[in-house]
């Protein structure tokens, strides 16, 4: 036996947290004979952890809420018991999580009692979710059961709605705007069928989208997410202008940008457990630049909106009092 191995005998390398994740990987292999992508793995571990917490079993798994739901904070764990292998699925590329065959149960330090619970729940969870490849069902489950609040839940539904809108629906040739990044797909896809036929659908879609934005504004937790509140207001306002102009694919991209920033500025810091302090400080330091980057995005989308919107003059009906307000504000800022 290798002297190092001898030394490590009786010195388990991994703890309860890692055992939970290890068990999830093992169960998937045993029950369904497959490995899974990183994203699916994170979600299942998160779910198993929540179910265990429900039973009063806390392995102090480091987790946080992020763009698509609850995930593992992998950098906070000793991840040597698995490897990431690059994989291709149709047009996507990602990483599969593959158990390190050299690792066995003995390498994990965990009480028998907890072990039994973990094995139990991991087995059950994998059984429920393992037969469906991909993350949608798990993500939906997470959002239904564990979403931090209504705002986060509705934003997910909204993003899903925008995503589900047919590629063809998203490209309205009349609303193609130069000088703004569009995907290659956007450009080559053929435009939707005649404006007359699609206008009915389009107005229904616009109404649906407005409904989502109304709901989001209604439930936005101002105090909890104070940091992102001003940017939320501007995003919400510009989104409405984008809808008006029928810029659906711009709306989708804008929403994704918003959510990415929101996840980094608010979600992962406000809804986390067992994150090491170093990691938390790193995330906190990044908040400022994330917000500044998104402010730049807002400026770009605003420029597009202003360039393409139908001219209105509602402020002109109150021109005097509006202009006076502007002057007073200018004076105030000049003090």
């Amino acid at each position, binding site marked *: 036996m290798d002297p190092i191995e001898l030394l490590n005998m009786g010195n388990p390398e991994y703890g309860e947290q890692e055992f939970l994740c290890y068990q999830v990987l093992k169960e998937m292999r045993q029950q369904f004979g497959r490995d899974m992508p990183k994203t699916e793995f994170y979600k299942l571990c998160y779910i198993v952890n929540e179910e265990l917490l429900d039973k009063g079993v806390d392995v102090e798994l480091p987790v946080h809420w992020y763009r698509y739901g609850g995930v593992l904070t992998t950098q906070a764990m000793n991840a040597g018991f698995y490897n990431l292998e690059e994989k291709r699925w149709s047009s996507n590329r990602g990483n599969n999580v593959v158990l390190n065959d050299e690792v066995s149960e003995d390498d994990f330090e965990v009480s028998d009692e907890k072990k039994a619970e973990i094995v139990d729940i991991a087995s059950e969870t994998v059984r429920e979710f393992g037969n469906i490849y991909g993350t949608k069902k798990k993500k939906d489950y997470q959002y239904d059961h564990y979403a931090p609040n209504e705002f986060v839940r509705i934003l997910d539904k909204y993003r899903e709605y925008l995503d589900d809108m047919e590629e063809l629906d998203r490209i309205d040739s009349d609303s193609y705007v130069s000088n703004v990044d569009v995907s290659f797909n956007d450009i080559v896809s053929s435009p939707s069928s005649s404006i007359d036929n699609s206008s009915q659908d389009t107005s229904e879609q616009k109404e649906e989208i407005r409904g989502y934005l*109304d709901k989001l504004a209604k439930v936005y937790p101002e105090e909890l997410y104070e940091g992102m509140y001003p940017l939320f*207001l501007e995003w919400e306002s510009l989104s409405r202008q984008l809808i008006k102009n029928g810029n659906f694919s711009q709306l989708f991209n804008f929403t994704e940008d918003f959510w990415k920033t929101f996840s980094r500025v608010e979600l992962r810091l406000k809804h986390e457990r067992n994150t090491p302090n170093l990691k938390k400080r790193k995330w906190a330091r990044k908040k400022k630049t994330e917000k500044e980057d998104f402010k730049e995005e807002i400026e770009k989308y605003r420029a597009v*909106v202003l360039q393409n919107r139908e001219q*209105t003059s509602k402020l002109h009906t109150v021109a005097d009092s*509006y*202009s006076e*307000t*502007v002057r007073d504000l*200018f004076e105030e*800022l000049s003090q």
Partner: protein
Amino acid sequence: MVQLKVLDTGVLLGMCIEIDQHHTKCIDYVVNDGCEKVYITPTVGSEFERKSSEIRQKLSQSIIKHRQKVVKEMNNDQLSRKALGYIRDTVLEGGNRAYRFLYEYYSKKMKNRVSVDKLEIVMDLEDMETEVWEDACKEHGGWKSLVSGWTKGINPYPDIENKLLIYEGDDRDVCLEAHHVAADTGKVTELGTTNSKHFIDKKSGESESRKDNILRITELEDVKDLSCGKVPTNN
């Protein structure tokens, strides 16, 4: 015959954001009478970018917050005159920066309509919060097409600086930069300002009016008062 005009920040504001008679006054100053060039000097340029952005942001966000509040608190799709009054007098917060013109907006609506679709109000508010960001010079080709940035650098003028009465905030720099344009080009140059208090009037305790002081010490030909007809205060 004026050859060059240099603008103060307030004039740019009048051109780009304001939309009342003062706006017309500022546009007329810049567009008509055929002077060679209208300059924006560095201090004015950066002050304008900063302040106009902040003003637009504050006002736009105030309208947005109010709009969201209307949707949250008014459940009916149709709003009666009474409901509009309720929005104006209760939903609209006194501390809202857009209070003055939103109050007027609702008053006008109440005067002209017996009932109105809630959606119409919401759409009007959406328009307003976006119009705040519009360039009021758009129909003249945008403000950047009407003015030129002074890019040839500014010299220091310690002697002039010492004798200038104007000292508030960026105003002294604005004045010195305008002087530099006149000195550097050798052309008949005037400064247009909306800030009569600091650039034109005589302040108590000072030996001469600000305008006289500027014209005596610098090479500016004139300081044009483009302020609104507000009641002058004694300072």
